[in-house]
Protein backbone atom coordinates (compact mmCIF):
# COMPACT_ATOMS: atom_id res chain seq x y z
CA UNK A 1 0.00 0.00 0.00
CA UNK A 2 2.67 2.46 1.09
CA UNK A 3 4.85 1.31 -1.79
CA UNK A 4 2.08 1.83 -4.31
CA UNK A 5 1.33 5.24 -2.86
CA UNK A 6 5.02 6.10 -3.07
CA UNK A 7 5.17 5.07 -6.73
CA UNK A 8 2.08 7.14 -7.48
CA UNK A 9 3.60 10.06 -5.61
CA UNK A 10 6.76 9.84 -7.70
CA UNK A 11 4.63 9.83 -10.86
CA UNK A 12 2.60 12.80 -9.63
CA UNK A 13 5.72 14.78 -8.73
CA UNK A 14 7.26 13.96 -12.09
CA UNK A 15 4.09 15.30 -13.68
CA UNK A 16 4.18 18.62 -11.86
CA UNK A 17 7.99 18.95 -12.04
CA UNK A 18 7.90 21.40 -14.99
CA UNK A 19 5.57 23.64 -12.99
CA UNK A 20 7.96 23.56 -10.03
CA UNK A 21 10.85 24.63 -12.25
CA UNK A 22 8.73 27.40 -13.70
CA UNK A 23 8.08 28.66 -10.18
CA UNK A 24 11.74 28.32 -9.32
CA UNK A 25 12.85 30.11 -12.49
CA UNK A 26 10.62 33.03 -11.60
CA UNK A 27 12.72 33.64 -8.47
CA UNK A 28 16.15 33.11 -10.06
CA UNK A 29 18.50 35.87 -11.15
CA UNK A 30 19.13 36.21 -14.89
CA UNK A 31 22.63 34.73 -14.62
CA UNK A 32 21.33 31.76 -12.62
CA UNK A 33 18.13 31.00 -14.47
CA UNK A 34 19.57 27.86 -16.04
CA UNK A 35 20.91 26.49 -12.78
CA UNK A 36 19.55 23.03 -12.21
CA UNK A 37 18.76 23.47 -8.52
CA UNK A 38 15.08 23.73 -7.75
CA UNK A 39 15.68 26.07 -4.81
CA UNK A 40 17.24 29.30 -6.14
CA UNK A 41 20.61 29.92 -4.51
CA UNK A 42 20.00 33.68 -4.49
CA UNK A 43 16.24 34.11 -4.65
CA UNK A 44 15.01 37.49 -5.84
CA UNK A 45 11.71 39.27 -6.42
CA UNK A 46 13.21 41.54 -9.09
CA UNK A 47 11.64 39.53 -11.92
CA UNK A 48 8.16 40.14 -10.59
CA UNK A 49 8.90 43.81 -10.00
CA UNK A 50 10.17 44.13 -13.57
CA UNK A 51 7.21 42.51 -15.28
CA UNK A 52 4.69 44.37 -13.12
CA UNK A 53 6.28 47.78 -13.63
CA UNK A 54 7.74 47.62 -17.15
CA UNK A 55 4.86 45.83 -18.85
CA UNK A 56 1.12 46.57 -18.32
CA UNK A 57 0.53 43.10 -16.86
CA UNK A 58 -1.88 44.41 -14.25
CA UNK A 59 -3.94 45.93 -17.04
CA UNK A 60 -3.94 42.59 -18.92
CA UNK A 61 -4.94 40.76 -15.75
CA UNK A 62 -7.72 43.26 -15.10
CA UNK A 63 -9.03 42.76 -18.65
CA UNK A 64 -8.98 39.00 -18.16
CA UNK A 65 -10.77 39.39 -14.85
CA UNK A 66 -13.50 41.56 -16.38
CA UNK A 67 -14.05 39.22 -19.34
CA UNK A 68 -13.90 36.01 -17.30
CA UNK A 69 -16.35 37.30 -14.67
CA UNK A 70 -18.78 38.74 -17.23
CA UNK A 71 -18.80 35.54 -19.29
CA UNK A 72 -19.20 33.39 -16.18
CA UNK A 73 -22.15 35.35 -14.80
CA UNK A 74 -23.98 35.51 -18.14
CA UNK A 75 -23.25 31.86 -18.93
CA UNK A 76 -24.52 30.65 -15.56
CA UNK A 77 -27.76 32.61 -15.96
CA UNK A 78 -28.46 31.64 -19.58
CA UNK A 79 -27.37 28.01 -19.28
CA UNK A 80 -29.38 27.42 -16.11
CA UNK A 81 -32.45 28.92 -17.80
CA UNK A 82 -31.98 26.71 -20.85
CA UNK A 83 -31.11 23.65 -18.78
CA UNK A 84 -34.18 24.21 -16.60
CA UNK A 85 -36.52 24.47 -19.57
CA UNK A 86 -35.04 21.38 -21.22
CA UNK A 87 -35.30 19.36 -18.02
CA UNK A 88 -38.52 20.51 -16.38
CA UNK A 89 -40.85 22.07 -18.93
CA UNK A 90 -42.93 20.23 -21.51
CA UNK A 91 -43.10 21.63 -24.99
CA UNK A 92 -43.13 20.24 -28.52
CA UNK A 93 -39.75 19.58 -30.11
CA UNK A 94 -37.91 19.42 -26.80
CA UNK A 95 -35.87 16.33 -27.62
CA UNK A 96 -34.94 17.57 -31.08
CA UNK A 97 -33.85 20.89 -29.65
CA UNK A 98 -31.78 19.19 -26.99
CA UNK A 99 -30.10 17.03 -29.59
CA UNK A 100 -29.28 20.10 -31.71
CA UNK A 101 -27.79 21.86 -28.70
CA UNK A 102 -25.88 18.72 -27.81
CA UNK A 103 -24.54 18.47 -31.36
CA UNK A 104 -22.88 21.90 -31.04
CA UNK A 105 -20.51 20.24 -28.54
CA UNK A 106 -18.83 18.76 -31.60
CA UNK A 107 -18.04 22.19 -33.06
CA UNK A 108 -14.57 23.30 -32.04
CA UNK A 109 -13.62 26.99 -32.04
CA UNK A 110 -10.57 26.71 -34.33
CA UNK A 111 -12.68 25.15 -37.08
CA UNK A 112 -15.20 28.01 -37.15
CA UNK A 113 -12.72 30.74 -36.25
CA UNK A 114 -12.73 32.55 -39.60
CA UNK A 115 -16.53 32.68 -40.12
CA UNK A 116 -17.06 33.48 -36.44
CA UNK A 117 -14.69 36.41 -36.81
CA UNK A 118 -16.68 37.61 -39.82
CA UNK A 119 -19.99 37.31 -37.94
CA UNK A 120 -18.61 39.18 -34.95
CA UNK A 121 -17.06 41.87 -37.14
CA UNK A 122 -20.38 42.33 -38.93
CA UNK A 123 -21.94 42.95 -35.53
CA UNK A 124 -19.35 45.66 -34.87
CA UNK A 125 -17.70 43.83 -32.00
CA UNK A 126 -14.06 43.87 -33.10
CA UNK A 127 -11.71 45.49 -30.62
CA UNK A 128 -14.11 45.97 -27.76
CA UNK A 129 -15.19 44.13 -24.65
CA UNK A 130 -18.44 42.97 -26.28
CA UNK A 131 -16.44 41.01 -28.85
CA UNK A 132 -14.37 39.38 -26.11
CA UNK A 133 -17.33 38.57 -23.91
CA UNK A 134 -20.49 37.83 -25.91
CA UNK A 135 -19.31 35.05 -28.28
CA UNK A 136 -17.61 33.26 -25.37
CA UNK A 137 -20.81 32.89 -23.36
CA UNK A 138 -22.49 30.25 -25.47
CA UNK A 139 -21.51 26.62 -25.18
CA UNK A 140 -23.53 23.48 -24.77
CA UNK A 141 -21.37 21.99 -22.04
CA UNK A 142 -22.95 24.07 -19.26
CA UNK A 143 -26.49 23.57 -20.59
CA UNK A 144 -25.88 19.85 -20.69
CA UNK A 145 -24.59 19.65 -17.11
CA UNK A 146 -27.34 21.84 -15.67
CA UNK A 147 -30.08 19.98 -17.52
CA UNK A 148 -28.69 16.76 -16.12
CA UNK A 149 -28.80 18.23 -12.62
CA UNK A 150 -32.34 19.60 -12.92
CA UNK A 151 -33.55 16.23 -14.22
CA UNK A 152 -32.56 14.74 -10.89
CA UNK A 153 -34.75 17.04 -8.78
CA UNK A 154 -38.00 15.54 -7.41
CA UNK A 155 -41.29 16.58 -9.03
CA UNK A 156 -42.88 17.53 -5.69
CA UNK A 157 -40.79 20.68 -5.43
CA UNK A 158 -42.55 22.27 -8.37
CA UNK A 159 -45.96 21.10 -7.22
CA UNK A 160 -45.44 22.79 -3.87
CA UNK A 161 -44.27 25.96 -5.60
CA UNK A 162 -47.19 25.83 -8.03
CA UNK A 163 -49.58 25.78 -5.08
CA UNK A 164 -47.94 28.98 -3.81
CA UNK A 165 -48.81 30.44 -7.21
CA UNK A 166 -45.26 31.09 -8.34
CA UNK A 167 -45.00 31.41 -12.13
CA UNK A 168 -42.45 29.38 -14.08
CA UNK A 169 -39.86 32.06 -13.49
CA UNK A 170 -40.62 31.98 -9.77
CA UNK A 171 -40.14 28.22 -9.59
CA UNK A 172 -36.88 28.46 -11.52
CA UNK A 173 -35.55 31.39 -9.53
CA UNK A 174 -36.76 30.54 -6.02
CA UNK A 175 -36.79 26.75 -6.08
CA UNK A 176 -34.59 25.20 -8.78
CA UNK A 177 -31.70 27.66 -8.81
CA UNK A 178 -30.95 27.60 -5.07
CA UNK A 179 -30.91 23.80 -5.20
CA UNK A 180 -28.40 23.88 -8.05
CA UNK A 181 -25.87 25.89 -6.04
CA UNK A 182 -23.19 23.15 -5.83
CA UNK A 183 -23.10 22.50 -9.57
CA UNK A 184 -23.33 26.21 -10.33
CA UNK A 185 -20.26 26.79 -8.14
CA UNK A 186 -18.29 24.10 -9.97
CA UNK A 187 -19.37 25.47 -13.35
CA UNK A 188 -18.46 29.00 -12.29
CA UNK A 189 -14.92 27.83 -11.59
CA UNK A 190 -14.82 26.04 -14.94
CA UNK A 191 -16.03 29.00 -16.94
CA UNK A 192 -13.76 31.42 -15.12
CA UNK A 193 -10.68 29.26 -15.67
CA UNK A 194 -11.55 28.58 -19.29
CA UNK A 195 -11.88 32.27 -20.07
CA UNK A 196 -8.90 33.32 -18.02
CA UNK A 197 -6.84 30.80 -19.97
CA UNK A 198 -8.26 31.50 -23.41
CA UNK A 199 -5.87 32.70 -26.07
CA UNK A 200 -7.06 32.01 -29.61
CA UNK A 201 -10.23 34.11 -29.49
CA UNK A 202 -8.70 37.19 -27.78
CA UNK A 203 -5.80 36.91 -30.25
CA UNK A 204 -8.23 36.98 -33.16
CA UNK A 205 -10.60 39.68 -31.99
CA UNK A 206 -8.35 42.34 -30.41
CA UNK A 207 -5.68 44.55 -31.95
CA UNK A 208 -5.84 47.31 -29.38
CA UNK A 209 -3.23 46.55 -26.74
CA UNK A 210 -5.39 48.13 -24.02
CA UNK A 211 -7.83 45.26 -24.50
CA UNK A 212 -5.30 42.45 -24.38
CA UNK A 213 -6.05 39.63 -22.03
CA UNK A 214 -3.33 38.07 -19.91
CA UNK A 215 -2.49 35.08 -22.13
CA UNK A 216 -2.05 37.36 -25.12
CA UNK A 217 0.05 39.65 -22.94
CA UNK A 218 2.51 36.96 -21.89
CA UNK A 219 2.71 35.41 -25.35
CA UNK A 220 3.63 38.79 -26.78
CA UNK A 221 6.01 39.55 -23.90
CA UNK A 222 7.76 36.28 -24.75
CA UNK A 223 8.24 37.21 -28.39
CA UNK A 224 9.82 40.52 -27.34
CA UNK A 225 12.02 39.10 -24.56
CA UNK A 226 12.75 35.73 -26.09
CA UNK A 227 15.84 34.94 -24.03
CA UNK A 228 14.89 36.54 -20.69
CA UNK A 229 13.58 33.36 -19.11
CA UNK A 230 13.64 34.75 -15.58
CA UNK A 231 11.18 37.47 -16.63
CA UNK A 232 9.09 35.12 -18.76
CA UNK A 233 8.77 32.59 -15.94
CA UNK A 234 7.78 35.36 -13.50
CA UNK A 235 5.12 36.56 -15.95
CA UNK A 236 3.91 32.98 -16.49
CA UNK A 237 3.74 32.37 -12.75
CA UNK A 238 1.66 35.54 -12.32
CA UNK A 239 -0.69 34.43 -15.10
CA UNK A 240 -1.04 30.92 -13.68
CA UNK A 241 -1.35 31.89 -10.00
CA UNK A 242 -5.08 32.75 -9.92
CA UNK A 243 -6.04 29.56 -11.77
CA UNK A 244 -3.89 27.39 -9.51
CA UNK A 245 -5.42 29.02 -6.45
CA UNK A 246 -8.95 28.40 -7.72
CA UNK A 247 -8.04 24.84 -8.61
CA UNK A 248 -6.65 24.04 -5.17
CA UNK A 249 -9.65 25.55 -3.40
CA UNK A 250 -12.35 24.01 -5.61
CA UNK A 251 -10.82 20.81 -6.97
CA UNK A 252 -13.23 18.58 -5.03
CA UNK A 253 -16.26 20.28 -6.57
CA UNK A 254 -14.64 20.23 -10.01
CA UNK A 255 -13.92 16.52 -9.80
CA UNK A 256 -17.40 15.62 -8.55
CA UNK A 257 -19.14 17.73 -11.18
CA UNK A 258 -17.00 16.21 -13.93
CA UNK A 259 -17.90 12.75 -12.64
CA UNK A 260 -21.60 13.60 -12.77
CA UNK A 261 -21.53 14.74 -16.38
CA UNK A 262 -23.11 11.52 -17.51
CA UNK A 263 -20.35 11.34 -20.10
CA UNK A 264 -19.88 7.76 -19.19
Amino acid sequence: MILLSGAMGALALFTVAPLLWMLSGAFKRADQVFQLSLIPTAPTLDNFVYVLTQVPFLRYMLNSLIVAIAVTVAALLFHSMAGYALARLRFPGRDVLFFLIYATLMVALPVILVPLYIVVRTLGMVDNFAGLIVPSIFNAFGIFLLRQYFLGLPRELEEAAALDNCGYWGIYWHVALPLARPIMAALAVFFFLYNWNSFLWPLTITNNQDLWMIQLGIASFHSEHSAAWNYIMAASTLAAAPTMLLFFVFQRQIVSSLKSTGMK
Partner: protein
Amino acid sequence: MTQKHRQWLAAALFLLPDGAGLLLFVAVPMVLALAMGFFSVNEFGSVSFAGLQNYQAMFRDPLFYKSLQVTVTYTVVFVPSLFVVSLALAHLIQQRVPLVGLWRMLLFLPNFVSVVVVALMFQYVLGQRTGILDQLIAPLGGANISWLGDPRYALWTVIAISVWIYMGYYMIIFLAALEDVPREYYDAARIDGAGFWGRFVHVTWPLIRPTSFFVLLLATIGGLAGLQGFDLVFVATSGGPANATEMGIFYIYQQAFQYGNFGYAAAMASFIVAILLLWSIFLFALTRGGRFELG
Protein backbone atom coordinates in the same frame (compact mmCIF):
# COMPACT_ATOMS: atom_id res chain seq x y z
CA MET B 1 -54.17 31.03 -22.77
CA THR B 2 -54.28 27.50 -21.45
CA GLN B 3 -51.87 26.09 -18.92
CA LYS B 4 -50.19 24.10 -21.70
CA HIS B 5 -49.60 27.14 -23.87
CA ARG B 6 -48.31 29.14 -20.92
CA GLN B 7 -45.73 26.43 -20.43
CA TRP B 8 -44.74 26.55 -24.12
CA LEU B 9 -44.29 30.30 -23.92
CA ALA B 10 -42.23 30.02 -20.73
CA ALA B 11 -39.99 27.41 -22.34
CA ALA B 12 -39.45 29.60 -25.37
CA LEU B 13 -38.43 32.55 -23.20
CA PHE B 14 -36.14 30.44 -21.03
CA LEU B 15 -34.41 29.08 -24.14
CA LEU B 16 -34.26 32.35 -26.05
CA PRO B 17 -30.86 33.74 -24.89
CA ASP B 18 -28.88 30.53 -25.30
CA GLY B 19 -30.80 29.49 -28.39
CA ALA B 20 -30.12 32.79 -30.15
CA GLY B 21 -26.50 32.84 -28.99
CA LEU B 22 -25.75 29.30 -30.14
CA LEU B 23 -27.45 29.99 -33.44
CA LEU B 24 -25.55 33.20 -34.09
CA PHE B 25 -22.12 32.25 -32.73
CA VAL B 26 -21.95 28.50 -33.41
CA ALA B 27 -24.51 27.31 -35.99
CA VAL B 28 -24.23 30.22 -38.45
CA PRO B 29 -20.39 30.14 -38.44
CA MET B 30 -20.54 26.38 -38.91
CA VAL B 31 -22.73 26.74 -42.01
CA LEU B 32 -20.57 29.63 -43.23
CA ALA B 33 -17.47 27.50 -42.69
CA LEU B 34 -18.81 25.00 -45.19
CA ALA B 35 -20.07 27.60 -47.68
CA MET B 36 -17.24 30.14 -47.57
CA GLY B 37 -14.79 27.83 -49.27
CA PHE B 38 -16.60 28.54 -52.55
CA PHE B 39 -16.03 32.28 -52.26
CA SER B 40 -13.09 34.56 -52.47
CA VAL B 41 -13.21 36.69 -49.33
CA ASN B 42 -10.51 39.09 -48.30
CA GLU B 43 -10.02 40.66 -44.90
CA PHE B 44 -11.74 43.89 -45.93
CA GLY B 45 -14.96 42.03 -46.59
CA SER B 46 -15.16 42.03 -50.38
CA VAL B 47 -16.78 38.82 -51.51
CA SER B 48 -16.95 37.18 -54.90
CA PHE B 49 -17.97 33.72 -56.01
CA ALA B 50 -14.93 31.59 -56.71
CA GLY B 51 -16.41 28.23 -57.51
CA LEU B 52 -13.90 25.48 -56.88
CA GLN B 53 -10.86 27.78 -57.16
CA ASN B 54 -10.01 27.61 -53.45
CA TYR B 55 -10.26 23.85 -53.46
CA GLN B 56 -8.13 23.57 -56.60
CA ALA B 57 -5.52 25.84 -55.05
CA MET B 58 -5.65 23.75 -51.90
CA PHE B 59 -4.81 20.51 -53.69
CA ARG B 60 -1.88 22.21 -55.45
CA ASP B 61 -0.49 23.70 -52.23
CA PRO B 62 2.43 21.66 -50.84
CA LEU B 63 2.04 23.37 -47.45
CA PHE B 64 -1.55 22.15 -47.30
CA TYR B 65 -0.35 18.55 -47.70
CA LYS B 66 2.35 19.14 -45.14
CA SER B 67 -0.16 20.58 -42.66
CA LEU B 68 -2.51 17.68 -43.31
CA GLN B 69 0.29 15.23 -42.67
CA VAL B 70 1.20 16.99 -39.42
CA THR B 71 -2.44 17.07 -38.29
CA VAL B 72 -2.99 13.38 -39.03
CA THR B 73 0.30 12.33 -37.39
CA TYR B 74 -0.53 14.44 -34.36
CA THR B 75 -4.02 12.97 -34.02
CA VAL B 76 -3.06 9.37 -34.72
CA VAL B 77 -0.37 9.46 -32.03
CA PHE B 78 -2.05 11.83 -29.57
CA VAL B 79 -5.44 10.10 -29.29
CA PRO B 80 -4.28 6.53 -28.47
CA SER B 81 -1.51 7.81 -26.18
CA LEU B 82 -3.94 9.99 -24.28
CA PHE B 83 -6.42 7.13 -24.10
CA VAL B 84 -3.96 4.60 -22.70
CA VAL B 85 -2.24 7.01 -20.31
CA SER B 86 -5.44 8.38 -18.80
CA LEU B 87 -7.05 4.95 -18.49
CA ALA B 88 -3.91 3.65 -16.75
CA LEU B 89 -3.83 6.66 -14.44
CA ALA B 90 -7.51 6.15 -13.61
CA HIS B 91 -6.75 2.56 -12.57
CA LEU B 92 -3.90 3.75 -10.36
CA ILE B 93 -5.82 6.56 -8.79
CA GLN B 94 -8.73 4.25 -8.05
CA GLN B 95 -6.64 2.31 -5.51
CA ARG B 96 -7.39 3.07 -1.90
CA VAL B 97 -3.93 3.99 -0.68
CA PRO B 98 -2.72 6.78 1.62
CA LEU B 99 -2.45 10.26 0.04
CA VAL B 100 -4.26 9.18 -3.10
CA GLY B 101 -6.34 12.38 -3.03
CA LEU B 102 -3.19 14.47 -3.16
CA TRP B 103 -1.71 12.48 -6.04
CA ARG B 104 -4.98 12.73 -7.94
CA MET B 105 -4.96 16.49 -7.47
CA LEU B 106 -1.39 16.85 -8.72
CA LEU B 107 -2.06 14.69 -11.79
CA PHE B 108 -5.14 16.77 -12.60
CA LEU B 109 -3.35 20.10 -12.09
CA PRO B 110 -1.77 20.55 -15.58
CA ASN B 111 -5.26 20.73 -17.07
CA PHE B 112 -5.85 24.05 -15.32
CA VAL B 113 -2.72 25.86 -16.41
CA SER B 114 -3.23 27.86 -19.59
CA VAL B 115 -1.71 26.34 -22.71
CA VAL B 116 0.23 29.57 -23.29
CA VAL B 117 1.92 29.23 -19.91
CA VAL B 118 2.51 25.55 -20.60
CA ALA B 119 4.14 26.37 -23.93
CA LEU B 120 6.45 28.97 -22.37
CA MET B 121 7.30 26.73 -19.44
CA PHE B 122 8.27 23.79 -21.66
CA GLN B 123 10.37 26.02 -23.88
CA TYR B 124 12.29 26.92 -20.75
CA VAL B 125 12.48 23.39 -19.34
CA LEU B 126 13.22 21.73 -22.70
CA GLY B 127 15.75 24.26 -23.99
CA GLN B 128 18.75 22.80 -25.78
CA ARG B 129 21.64 22.05 -23.41
CA THR B 130 20.65 24.77 -20.92
CA GLY B 131 17.17 23.38 -20.29
CA ILE B 132 16.46 21.36 -17.17
CA LEU B 133 15.76 18.12 -19.02
CA ASP B 134 18.95 18.18 -21.10
CA GLN B 135 20.93 18.95 -17.94
CA LEU B 136 19.30 16.05 -16.13
CA ILE B 137 19.95 13.52 -18.87
CA ALA B 138 23.47 14.77 -19.65
CA PRO B 139 25.12 12.55 -17.00
CA LEU B 140 23.27 9.55 -18.41
CA GLY B 141 25.28 9.87 -21.58
CA GLY B 142 22.56 12.02 -23.03
CA ALA B 143 22.01 14.50 -25.03
CA ASN B 144 22.24 17.87 -26.41
CA ILE B 145 18.78 17.80 -27.86
CA SER B 146 16.67 20.69 -29.01
CA TRP B 147 13.33 19.12 -28.17
CA LEU B 148 11.22 21.85 -29.74
CA GLY B 149 13.76 23.20 -32.22
CA ASP B 150 14.81 20.07 -34.10
CA PRO B 151 12.48 19.00 -36.93
CA ARG B 152 13.07 15.37 -35.99
CA TYR B 153 11.68 15.82 -32.45
CA ALA B 154 9.48 18.90 -32.40
CA LEU B 155 6.17 17.26 -33.32
CA TRP B 156 6.68 14.38 -30.87
CA THR B 157 7.47 16.88 -28.14
CA VAL B 158 4.32 18.84 -28.94
CA ILE B 159 2.28 15.62 -28.77
CA ALA B 160 3.85 14.63 -25.44
CA ILE B 161 3.04 18.06 -24.00
CA SER B 162 -0.55 17.76 -25.24
CA VAL B 163 -0.91 14.41 -23.48
CA TRP B 164 0.59 15.96 -20.35
CA ILE B 165 -2.05 18.71 -20.44
CA TYR B 166 -5.07 16.49 -21.01
CA MET B 167 -4.35 13.20 -19.23
CA GLY B 168 -5.66 14.44 -15.88
CA TYR B 169 -9.01 15.45 -17.34
CA TYR B 170 -9.63 12.11 -19.02
CA MET B 171 -8.26 10.32 -15.96
CA ILE B 172 -11.18 11.80 -14.00
CA ILE B 173 -13.67 10.86 -16.73
CA PHE B 174 -12.38 7.26 -16.74
CA LEU B 175 -12.28 7.19 -12.94
CA ALA B 176 -16.00 8.01 -12.85
CA ALA B 177 -16.66 5.14 -15.25
CA LEU B 178 -14.53 2.70 -13.25
CA GLU B 179 -16.29 3.62 -10.01
CA ASP B 180 -19.60 2.77 -11.66
CA VAL B 181 -18.59 -0.84 -12.32
CA PRO B 182 -20.36 -2.92 -9.63
CA ARG B 183 -17.79 -4.46 -7.28
CA GLU B 184 -19.66 -7.79 -7.30
CA TYR B 185 -18.63 -8.29 -10.93
CA TYR B 186 -14.98 -8.10 -9.95
CA ASP B 187 -15.55 -10.40 -6.98
CA ALA B 188 -17.25 -12.92 -9.25
CA ALA B 189 -14.41 -12.72 -11.78
CA ARG B 190 -11.89 -13.17 -8.98
CA ILE B 191 -13.66 -16.32 -7.80
CA ASP B 192 -13.46 -17.59 -11.38
CA GLY B 193 -9.71 -17.11 -11.11
CA ALA B 194 -9.37 -14.06 -13.36
CA GLY B 195 -6.19 -12.03 -12.86
CA PHE B 196 -5.93 -8.29 -13.33
CA TRP B 197 -5.82 -8.60 -17.11
CA GLY B 198 -8.72 -11.05 -17.20
CA ARG B 199 -10.85 -8.77 -15.06
CA PHE B 200 -9.96 -5.83 -17.27
CA VAL B 201 -10.83 -7.60 -20.52
CA HIS B 202 -13.99 -9.34 -19.35
CA VAL B 203 -15.45 -6.89 -16.83
CA THR B 204 -14.02 -3.38 -17.09
CA TRP B 205 -13.60 -3.00 -20.83
CA PRO B 206 -17.18 -3.95 -21.88
CA LEU B 207 -18.67 -1.81 -19.13
CA ILE B 208 -16.69 1.35 -19.83
CA ARG B 209 -17.32 1.22 -23.58
CA PRO B 210 -19.60 4.26 -23.63
CA THR B 211 -16.91 6.28 -21.86
CA SER B 212 -14.22 4.98 -24.20
CA PHE B 213 -16.36 6.03 -27.13
CA PHE B 214 -16.86 9.47 -25.66
CA VAL B 215 -13.16 9.95 -24.93
CA LEU B 216 -12.16 8.80 -28.43
CA LEU B 217 -14.68 11.14 -30.01
CA LEU B 218 -13.71 14.19 -27.97
CA ALA B 219 -9.97 13.58 -28.17
CA THR B 220 -10.12 13.15 -31.93
CA ILE B 221 -12.11 16.32 -32.38
CA GLY B 222 -9.64 18.10 -30.10
CA GLY B 223 -6.71 16.69 -32.03
CA LEU B 224 -7.94 17.34 -35.56
CA ALA B 225 -9.40 20.74 -34.74
CA GLY B 226 -6.25 21.76 -32.87
CA LEU B 227 -8.14 22.59 -29.69
CA GLN B 228 -5.02 22.20 -27.60
CA GLY B 229 -2.54 22.08 -30.43
CA PHE B 230 -3.09 25.59 -31.73
CA ASP B 231 -2.03 27.58 -28.66
CA LEU B 232 0.89 25.24 -28.12
CA VAL B 233 2.15 25.49 -31.68
CA PHE B 234 1.51 29.23 -31.89
CA VAL B 235 3.56 30.02 -28.79
CA ALA B 236 6.16 27.24 -28.67
CA THR B 237 7.11 26.63 -32.30
CA SER B 238 5.16 28.94 -34.66
CA GLY B 239 4.68 25.90 -36.86
CA GLY B 240 8.40 25.37 -37.18
CA PRO B 241 11.08 24.22 -37.35
CA ALA B 242 10.89 23.66 -41.11
CA ASN B 243 7.08 23.36 -40.85
CA ALA B 244 7.50 20.25 -38.69
CA THR B 245 4.64 21.36 -36.41
CA GLU B 246 2.61 23.24 -39.02
CA MET B 247 -0.79 21.89 -37.99
CA GLY B 248 -3.73 22.32 -40.34
CA ILE B 249 -5.46 24.65 -37.97
CA PHE B 250 -2.37 26.81 -37.59
CA TYR B 251 -1.88 27.03 -41.34
CA ILE B 252 -5.54 28.01 -41.70
CA TYR B 253 -5.04 30.74 -39.12
CA GLN B 254 -1.99 32.03 -40.97
CA GLN B 255 -3.78 32.07 -44.32
CA ALA B 256 -6.74 33.94 -42.83
CA PHE B 257 -5.19 36.41 -40.44
CA GLN B 258 -1.68 36.88 -41.75
CA TYR B 259 -2.34 36.76 -45.50
CA GLY B 260 -6.03 37.76 -45.49
CA ASN B 261 -7.17 34.78 -47.60
CA PHE B 262 -10.40 34.11 -45.75
CA GLY B 263 -12.01 32.03 -48.50
CA TYR B 264 -8.95 29.84 -48.90
CA ALA B 265 -8.73 29.38 -45.15
CA ALA B 266 -12.40 28.40 -45.04
CA ALA B 267 -11.91 25.87 -47.84
CA MET B 268 -9.22 24.15 -45.80
CA ALA B 269 -11.34 24.37 -42.64
CA SER B 270 -14.23 22.69 -44.43
CA PHE B 271 -11.87 19.87 -45.39
CA ILE B 272 -11.07 19.32 -41.70
CA VAL B 273 -14.79 19.46 -40.87
CA ALA B 274 -15.38 16.74 -43.47
CA ILE B 275 -12.73 14.51 -41.88
CA LEU B 276 -14.26 15.16 -38.45
CA LEU B 277 -17.73 14.24 -39.67
CA LEU B 278 -16.52 11.06 -41.36
CA TRP B 279 -14.68 10.04 -38.20
CA SER B 280 -17.74 10.68 -36.01
CA ILE B 281 -19.98 8.69 -38.34
CA PHE B 282 -17.41 5.89 -38.44
CA LEU B 283 -17.21 5.78 -34.64
CA PHE B 284 -21.00 5.78 -34.29
CA ALA B 285 -21.33 2.97 -36.84
CA LEU B 286 -18.51 0.95 -35.32
CA THR B 287 -19.95 1.09 -31.83
CA ARG B 288 -23.58 0.90 -32.96
CA GLY B 289 -24.25 4.34 -31.57
CA GLY B 290 -21.60 3.86 -28.93
CA ARG B 291 -24.30 2.32 -26.77
CA PHE B 292 -24.19 5.90 -25.75
CA GLU B 293 -27.41 7.42 -24.56
CA LEU B 294 -28.08 11.10 -24.83
CA GLY B 295 -29.04 12.39 -21.44
